[in-house]
């Protein structure tokens, strides 16, 4: 856990992305990566770097999120014991991703999987809110 995040940070720094953006993207990635590691058999993380923004996409075919409202509540966690023993899964994952992103979209279907898109603006820092709901 964290391997992708640290790699992404290096890529972003090499591309000359602003340190504040690098930090936020790194945190979002760490949380998303940890969730995939804890709850699924694997997923895909895609990084896209534009002049005005950085975007992270997380996609998995894991169990999906049963209660979309609960998962956005700080402290709520369904993490198994092995994850807690490693120091993770104390909740705060999704809320922390939302907090660090300017735009945050989450789609999930129990039994099918979860997809997340997080955007961090490089200029202007416009907040466009976030949404979570059942999706395709």
């Amino acid at each position, binding site marked *: 856990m*964290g391997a992708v995040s640290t790699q992404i940070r290096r890529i972003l720094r090499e591309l000359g992305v602003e340190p504040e953006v690098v930090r936020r993207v790194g945190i979002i990635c760490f949380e998303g990566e940890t969730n995939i590691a804890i709850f699924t058999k694997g997923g895909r993380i895609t990084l896209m770097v534009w002049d005005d923004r950085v975007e992270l996409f997380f996609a998995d075919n894991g169990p999906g999120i049963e209660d979309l409202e609960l998962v956005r509540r700080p402290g709520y966690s369904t993490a198994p014991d092995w994850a807690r023993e490693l*120091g993770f899964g104390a909740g705060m994952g999704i809320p*922390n991703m939302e*907090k660090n992103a300017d735009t945050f979209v989450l789609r999930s279907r129990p039994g099918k999987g979860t997809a997340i898109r997080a955007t961090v603006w490089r200029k202007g820092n416009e907040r466009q809110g976030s949404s979570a709901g059942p999706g395709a």
Partner: protein
Amino acid sequence: MKLREVAEVTQAEVLTGRELLEREVDKGCGADLLSDVLSVVEENFLLVTGMVTLQAVRVAEVMNAAAVLIVRGKRPLEPVIAYAEEAGIPLLATQKGMFETCGLLYSRGLRPTRFRRVSEYAG
């Protein structure tokens, strides 16, 4: 305070980052639950933890922490130390427990980090 002083106060061994001991830290965060560290607001803080995993170093890296101080006499495996060295994150290790370590550093002036307030996540 400088990392050098942190090491002295806690009688910590420097596992890597000997050349970075002049680095200054003014805040500390104590946690075994690494997921909480991900909501620390500041950068450049000292992460005090009993976790000796690669993830602990990665969390420090992602949060732009200044250094990691491992407590309870635990020792990370060589690959973890090597990773920290490569990432430029000093690793210190003390025999003292978390409670005493935090106590000593706090009394020497290291202040606690702030966390993103729980209520800010609503929306």
